[in-house]
């Protein structure tokens, strides 16, 4: 009996340590490379090379810890905005890094002042996630939304006044005519002289 229990204990110990060994072997993944994201902004230029008012480029560069550019990684760009009760990160757009690790989106702010921009690259099997923020001072804005038009406003105003005047004149005429007829006929029983 003693020998059997000793064998069982040994078996358990061996199996247990084997399992532990297997776990440590399979559970240890390859750590993704840490990456660093940097972001800058620059005025956007038109094809002739002149800066476009109110338009910017947000440039994010993704590199690994040792400075190698990370290619083909999607980078999301956000603008921090206070909206419906809380501070939110509003997605501006997504761009994929090129061979130099650069991703660019166009950015057109709608308000002057300081804007906080966030760039974020998601974790993948190879690379860890990284994020960074940047601020941008905006002094001139061009609204991306269509302006409200009020067509024919002066014509409408003139027409309203004109029609109102006509209505007043017509009423004055009708009432005046009725009053004249009533008073004239009432008074006319003696005073009027026969004409013709």
């Amino acid at each position: 009996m003693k020998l059997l229990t000793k064998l069982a204990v040994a078996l358990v110990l061996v199996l247990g340590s084997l399992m532990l060994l297997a776990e440590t072997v399979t559970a240890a993944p390859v750590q993704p490379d840490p990456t660093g994201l940097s972001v800058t902004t620059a005025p956007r230029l038109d094809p002739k090379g002149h800066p476009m008012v109110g338009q910017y480029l947000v440039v994010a560069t993704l590199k690994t810890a040792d400075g190698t550019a990370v290619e083909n990684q999607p980078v999301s760009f956000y603008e921090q905005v206070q909206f419906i009760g809380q501070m939110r990160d509003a997605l501006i757009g997504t761009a994929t890094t090129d061979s130099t690790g650069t991703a660019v989106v166009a950015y057109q702010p709608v308000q002057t002042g300081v804007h906080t921009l966030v760039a974020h690259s998601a974790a993948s099997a190879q690379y860890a996630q990284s994020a960074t923020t940047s601020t941008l001072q905006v002094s001139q804005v061009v609204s991306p939304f269509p302006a409200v038009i009020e067509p024919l406003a002066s014509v409408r105003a003139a027409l309203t006044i004109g029609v109102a005047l006509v209505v007043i004149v017509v009423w004055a005429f009708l009432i005046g005519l009725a009053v004249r007829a009533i008073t004239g006929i009432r008074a006319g029983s003696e005073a009027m002289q026969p004409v013709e």
Partner: protein
Amino acid sequence: MVHDRTVVLEDVREAALRPMGRSGWRFWALAGVLALVVVVGAGAYVYQLIGGLGTAGYYDRGFWGIYEANLVAFIGVSYGGALVSAILRLTQARWRAPITRLAEAMAVFSLLVGAAFAVIHLGRPDRMWELVTRPQASSPIVWDFVAVMTYLVATLVFLSLPLIPDVAVLRDRFSGTAGWRRRLYGALSLNWRGKPGQRRLLEQSVTAVAILIIPIAVLVHSVLSWAFAVNSRPGWDSTIFAPYFVVAALFSGVAMVILVVAGFRKGYHLERYIEPKHFRYLAFLMLTLDLLYLYFTFTELLTEGYTLNEQVTPILTQLLAGQYAPFFWLFVVGAGIVPLLLVALPRTRTVPGIVTASALVVAGMWLKRLLIVVPAVAAPLISGDWGSFRPTWVALSITLAGAAAIPLLLMIFFKFFPILSIYEMEEMAAEPVLEPTMSEPAVPELVTAGVVERGIR
């Protein structure tokens, strides 16, 4: 035209005042029936006020329907008054004299009923006063309000002015008696003594209003049409609506005049003064307007439908070949073609034939207004099912009440005021007849009963 000569036509006066005397059982029976219809309608309206407009058959896909059509139709028939009194006056058509009072009174009462429907169709009539306290100048509803009020004042003035000398006749009749009649007519007659100065002032005033009432009348129905036409809704987004509605009003108005004149002529035995020629002349006017209205309808449909665009084509399809087609073609044949033939063919151009044609026209034009309102509302603007308008007993009884109110109000009115315009008929008689071609003299004494009854074909 005012002359020193005055003529007193006793038989005209007797006939004009005949309704004011004791009425037989037929009068009271008819008045009773009409009053009953009006009372039932009033009760239905109270029911509608409590339960909301949904009780009349309205819902979100049928938000405008019978009341809006009634509004247009009843204001439309009032145009007969403007046409007969004003236009015929300005064109100096002497034959208008026996029918002006009937036409003018009908115009006032149908206008009042039409304006009543403007109130009946509101969801919150208790806030009507806001149209005066906070009107918005850009709204066609405000334009409607101003236009109808102006037209009402003008029509009332137009009825009241020639009434003054007639009321003076009544004052003189009742001068011997004591009582409210003498006081009433005394006050209303405004000291009318038939003096030349007074007659001249009256003529001037009536002519001035007659001139003014024509553009007002044209504008009123134009403005009514714009409540529909200013919307981008397919079926209403048409530039021709204003003259279209004006012609519709004149057309149905003349027909209504014929009906009213025929009814009261029969009821009060006025055949001596209102002759078949009056019906024939009015019928020719109606014929002209019938052709004009058919022309406008055709133009409207052709220009709307020719491009076969996505928005209007479904409505036209339903109107000409779909769910509304039976009503549309019934209108075209029943109120367009048949009255035209009845009047055009000499065989049927009799008083009964003309009255039949007019009845068809009035009913058909009411149906046509429904066909203008309902399909454009029912058509889906985005996608999905068509709406519909199914009037309930509430809507129908209120509509019938409006239709019954007009003859009832006229019957009551002529209990107090002369049914023929004594002043105008006597003025016609006093005038020397200038054109020899007017072979039928306006002086009724020369017309014997036998000639009238034969009916000149």
